[in-house]
């Protein structure tokens, strides 16, 4: 399926590639074929090499490259496919965001962007929905017809999507990292036996290799990892909602709506018995301003004051995990890795020390003001403004000034 090769005419035997290889798959050895002063050439141990391509960009002399060989040519795969999820007969916002990003990737690869959706409505309605996707940037829309009773069950969609991919061979296939997408995409990836990167926040095309570089947070956002899928197609990723930008819809955009030869059928042994709509409660996920309490708030009595302040200011309140564990706050208010990820315009952290699990939940806040009596508290590293004070003194002052 391809391998990393070293050009003996260009290799200087410098060993820079040895240093960048994380797998220890490269050694620089003496070789009579060497054309350099050292008489050495970089040798790739194909047993250890994962074809990650780090060494290609690590070689300043362009001596290392990927030889795709004569195998089942990856170059047979063309086009960018975006799966457009629907809820209640409308496309999810992330579908349009993916089309915006997909357009950019397709233009860079000089290929077509197809929007794929699974739809139980009739042909005319499907045509109308497909047009909408084209207006948001797709070159064509592919409708996968769906039995009514197969709707909303990802397993029913997965087989149909695999069939479509095997027939049309896209090089890239993207899904929204919604709960549905994060269940459907891995089922499709395992069916196709290809790679899948979860919850990406950055997608780009590597100029040299043409590979899709998929960047995602790991360890609760404390580490970013860039991942590629060099030997398998399609290159699949789920993309976090709310990150990519949708294009403004343009009704004059041209493109055709086609119906896939496959269809989503209700697989036996799987039934959706009931759809329960949650009452629209105010979630801290959508709050514009959050006052976030940590252990520094301390007691039930103090928490009551903070809640009073939130009420007067009309802000939401969040908390760190210890406050939930000790029963002071309820779980829906918990911010962090095992609670909510929040993205307010303003986050005020009161007595929050800044454990990394908590920080993982607040990285999307636009402005963070932290109040803590410990000037070295880790929360200050994530904050824009640093208030070194006892947080309850400040709360009491705020209440007094209102």
């Amino acid at each position, binding site marked *: 399926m391809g391998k990393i090769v070293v050009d003996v005419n260009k290799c200087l035997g410098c060993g820079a590639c040895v240093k960048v290889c*994380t797998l220890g798959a490269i050694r620089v050895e003496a070789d009579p074929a060497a054309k350099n002063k050292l008489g050495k050439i970089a040798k790739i141990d194909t047993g250890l090499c*994962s*074809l990650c*391509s780090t060494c290609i960009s690590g070689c300043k002399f362009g001596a290392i490259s990927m030889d795709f060989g004569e195998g089942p040519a990856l170059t047979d795969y063309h086009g960018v496919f975006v799966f457009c999820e629907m809820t209640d007969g409308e496309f999810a916002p992330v579908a349009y965001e993916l089309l915006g990003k997909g357009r950019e990737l397709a233009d860079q690869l000089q290929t077509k962007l197809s929007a794929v959706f699974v739809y139980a409505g009739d042909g005319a309605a499907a045509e109308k929905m497909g047009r909408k996707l084209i207006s948001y940037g797709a070159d064509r829309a592919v409708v996968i017809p769906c039995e009514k009773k197969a709707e909303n*069950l990802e397993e029913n969609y*997965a087989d149909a999507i695999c069939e479509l991919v095997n027939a049309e061979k896209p090089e890239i296939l993207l899904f929204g990292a919604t*709960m*549905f997408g*994060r269940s459907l*995409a*891995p*089922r499709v990836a*395992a069916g196709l036996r*290809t*790679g*899948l*990167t*979860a919850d990406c926040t950055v997608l780009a095309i590597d100029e040299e290799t043409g590979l899709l570089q998929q960047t995602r947070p*790991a*360890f*609760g956002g404390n*580490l*970013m*990892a*860039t*991942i*590629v*899928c*060099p030997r398998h197609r399609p290159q699949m990723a789920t993309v976090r909602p709310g990150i990519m930008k949708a294009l403004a819809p343009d009704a004059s955009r041209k493109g055709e709506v086609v119906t896939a030869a496959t269809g989503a059928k209700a*697989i036996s*042994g*799987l*039934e*959706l*018995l*009931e759809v*329960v*709509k949650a009452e629209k409660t105010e979630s801290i996920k959508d709050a514009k*301003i959050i006052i976030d309490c940590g252990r520094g708030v301390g007691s039930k009595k103090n928490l009551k004051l903070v809640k009073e302040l939130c009420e007067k200011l009309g802000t939401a309140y969040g908390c760190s995990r210890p406050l939930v564990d000790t029963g002071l706050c309820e779980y829906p208010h918990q911010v962090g*890795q*095992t609670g909510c990820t929040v993205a307010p*315009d303003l986050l*005020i952290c009161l007595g929050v020390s800044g*454990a990394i*699990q908590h920080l993982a939940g607040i990285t999307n806040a636009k*402005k963070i*003001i932290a*109040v803590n009596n410990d000037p070295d508290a880790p929360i200050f*590293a994530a*904050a*824009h*403004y*640093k*208030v*070194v*004070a*006892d947080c309850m003194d400040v709360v009491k*002052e*705020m209440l007094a*000034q209102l």
Partner: protein
Amino acid sequence: MKFIVCIKQVPSTNEVRLDPVTHAIIRDGRQSVINPFDLYAVELGAQLRDRMGGTLTALSMGIPATERLLRECISRGADDAVLMTDRAFAGSDTLATSYAISLGVNAVGGADLILCGKMAVDGDTAQIGPELARTLGIHHVTDVAEVMDITEKDITVRKVTETGSFVEKVAFPAVITVVKDIVMPRLPSISGVRKSLDAPFKTFSAAEANADTARTGFNGSPTSVVKTFTPEGRTEAAPVEGTPADQAAFLLKAVKEVR
């Protein structure tokens, strides 16, 4: 009935530290724990086993030291444990991991219900459950928050969605992934710990599990990490000086500006 619970060894998250120079995660292995989400799966598996009869097997892929955590699963209610361990499994991405776990499922003769945590706290991918189900060719339901009914043939569950929840009935064999708080994990009991010391524990190498080594470890992993880096740091926080009254005024002004 046969139940399997899949667990992952993760660094105790309180101990996750980044090396300031290399930006690599400092892992010294000593503080590894059972992935917190998996503890809910262990407990649910134990409760369903108690209700329906049968056995609960804890299953993992990892280094030999994972035995300690698998024995902990036994002290928390599992009957026995299986570890897939081999150099050939090293470097697995989610597809290769699902394959290795599927070999473990087959090595113990399959199961009616396989339980997994919703995701692991180190990788955050949430992909193993669905990939495992597809690799085994069986059903799956993710994000299960409640078991409403279980029979010899099927299970009815409530899964959380962005807009509320779905009630789904799924025939065995199946994989479910569970969310936090579906049940309250029990603490290991003294008798449980004692039992776990001599409970059946088996390991399988790639060869013993008849693995196709083109599908394991690095060879079987379509994806590879080319770069890791710490997210861009912000510029240093601007100090807000003055008395608590001044600082309170600053905060109130900030609230007003946003609103």
